[in-house]
């Protein structure tokens, strides 16, 4: 049970800066997910928190205390490695007991703790086995068990599910979430899979090239992405982007002129002539023909999933998600409607433009996203 706070943390390896001044807070009991494409520094950040690497600048604080100089073992954290890092020459029991033995804990107490963790993770029958005799999911649970027995202040997970097959991953995801509900311990979880992030997190930290792009709840990030990167990264399939220029802007929003597509009304507060990118999620695009607000494209591919369908268009390149099944086929012209409420507008630097305040009657009801089973 602990809080964590990163204050302007910088990590340099030689001349290259890997983490550029990252700051955020994690409150007690929170499940925080670091998400970002590979190479964005999320694993490095985790190693800085647990003390396996030292920070070059800034401070890592746990429970308000600066931990920069405290060695990894004394920070009271437990790390579950991507490779599990189970000691291959020790039995499951010894793997879990090793850390406690190092603390000089009495044997009886070690046995009690390991038994408790084994029961919780359903590892009882395997305590005498070596890790090589276990399946991937079982190894994963041993790695988690090794973290649990130490009763850490914060659990750190470094892409723990990436070595499991898809089906097992969904199961372990639920198990981890359940574990978090039961232990109520602060957990920090690193992944490159935005579905894992969306489904498990209380709070998501989106990282890109060593910088924090946005911190927020999963729905915050989904509904109000701070920038084009977060908008594209969160959500599956990816958000559609169209580039254009602001034709005119007023208190009711801006009209964006998209070359070869036409004018698209938005609610962005923008300057006329500004280069912008508009974004809209596939699930918010509607197949409709309301006059003046439609976009027409050529169907280049249709994915029928039964409950919902993905239609890929060219000119403009777009993916739309339709509820139920569709009659659209390759080569058809599809007229789609982009609800003004669902359109995000980003400036040339990829930052989201603020919205104009809209009178309630002008609001358009957003279509409900389908029950998507992605990932």
């Amino acid at each position, binding site marked *: 049970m602990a809080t964590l706070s990163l204050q302007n943390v910088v990590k340099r390896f030689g001349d290259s800066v890997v983490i550029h001044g990252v700051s955020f807070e994690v409150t007690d009991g929170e499940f925080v997910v670091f998400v970002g494409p590979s190479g964005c520094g999320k694993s490095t950040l985790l190693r800085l928190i647990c003390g*396996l690497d030292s920070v070059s600048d800034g401070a890592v604080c746990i429970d308000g205390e600066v931990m920069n100089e405290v060695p*990894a073992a004394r920070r009271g954290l437990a790390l579950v490695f991507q490779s599990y890092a189970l000691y291959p020459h020790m039995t499951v029991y010894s793997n879990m007991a090793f*850390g406690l033995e190092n603390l000089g804990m009495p044997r009886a107490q070690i046995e009690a703790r390991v038994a408790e963790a084994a029961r919780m993770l359903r590892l009882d029958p395997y305590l005498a086995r070596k890790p090589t005799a276990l399946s991937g999911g079982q190894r994963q649970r041993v790695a988690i068990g090794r973290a649990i027995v130490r009763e850490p202040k914060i659990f750190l997970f470094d892409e723990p599910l990436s070595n499991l097959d898809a089906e097992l991953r969904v199961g372990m995801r639920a198990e981890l979430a359940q574990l978090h509900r039961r232990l109520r311990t602060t957990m920090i979880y690193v992944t490159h899979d935005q579905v894992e992030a969306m489904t498990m997190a209380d709070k998501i930290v989106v990282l890109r090239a060593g910088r924090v792009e946005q911190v927020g709840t999963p729905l915050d990030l989904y509904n109000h992405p701070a920038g084009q990167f977060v908008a594209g990264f969160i959500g599956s399939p990816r958000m559609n982007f169209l580039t254009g220029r602001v034709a005119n802007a007023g208190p009711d929003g801006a009209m964006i002129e998209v070359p070869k597509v036409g004018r698209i009304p938005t609610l962005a507060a923008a300057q006329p002539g500004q280069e912008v990118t508009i974004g809209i999620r596939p699930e918010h695009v509607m197949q409709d023909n309301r006059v003046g607000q439609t976009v027409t494209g050529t169907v280049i591919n249709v994915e029928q999933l039964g409950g919902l369908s993905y239609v890929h268009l060219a000119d403009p390149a777009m993916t739309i998600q339709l509820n139920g099944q569709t009659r659209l086929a390759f080569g058809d012209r599809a007229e789609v409607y982009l609800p003004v409420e669902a359109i995000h507008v980003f400036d040339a630097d990829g930052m989201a433009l603020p919205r104009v305040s809209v009178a309630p009657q002008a609001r358009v009801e957003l279509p409900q996203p389908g029950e998507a089973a992605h990932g």
Partner: protein
Amino acid sequence: MIARILTARRGRFGWDWTDWATYLYLVLGVVLMFGPVLWLFLSSVKTQAGLDMFPPTFLPWEQKQARVPDHSGTLPLFRVTAGDHAGQSLAQIRRIGLQSQLVSPDDPTKIVRVPISDLQPEMQLRASWSNYSDLLGKFNFGLYFFNSAFITVVATVLTLLVNSMAAFALSKYRFTGREPVFLVMLATLMIPPTIVLVPNYLIASTLGLTNSLWGVIFPAVATPTGVFMLRQYMLTLPDDLLEAARMDNASEWRIYWRIVLPLSAPALAVLAIFSVVWRWNDFLWPMVVLSRSNVFTLPIALFSFQGDLQTQWPYLLAMTVCTLLPVTLIFIFLQRYVTQGIASAGVK
């Protein structure tokens, strides 16, 4: 199972030409490898007379001896091939020129003369185990064996310890000068031991290590080969394991003892075998450092058997067999680790 291995062949029906080639090659290999060892062993159970025999024999043939009343000691038995006594087996008393004086063991009073061209020595197969049993009494074999064993065991344990520590540091810690240190260590492989013999001796003698078993042990403890071998193996151990152990509150010493050493077992076994063979067979350095016979190792004792004028070949050969045995046994028991070590290094 063994029969199946020994009769394995490629051709499903009958013999393929590759089978012939393979078996020929393998048999040649066996003869080449085992021939000398087998000959050594068979020779070590021959008597001096058996060894002096010309043409040399492979098996320990020996002339039959007979005890005859009125004659001291034993007399060699001959079979007469021609003349009046043809077919009889007689004991030779003495030889005078081309004539031999013989006596029948059953009738000691009657002496017969037979030309030596009509005589054929009566041979029998007999292993002279006394070569071995005499060793224990005559040559202080026990002491030499102990000296050799002590040096081998202690030096091997220390070698494993010191080399694995060095390898751990060189493979798992980042420090300035790590690469230069490693390169300098490897570079020493290029220096033949004979070149550093004199400086080493001067150091040993300054430290008062001459004529002490420790004088043989200490210089042998740090071997560049061992460090290199272990380092290469330890590089394959994932860093995650050490970091997990670090998160588990393990001190660096504990990581070394509980994680790195057990996981390096295959490489350690290989090095142990090497070290045992090196130390057991080591000759030049012990020869230089040890000059008193009470600290002799087996190879030096063997060498001292070869006198200037006369060499007691039966004992020398018996002792050579005794010297070979321990190394062979160790290899048999640890060879599993050798193949395992090589295999796992190859797979990863």
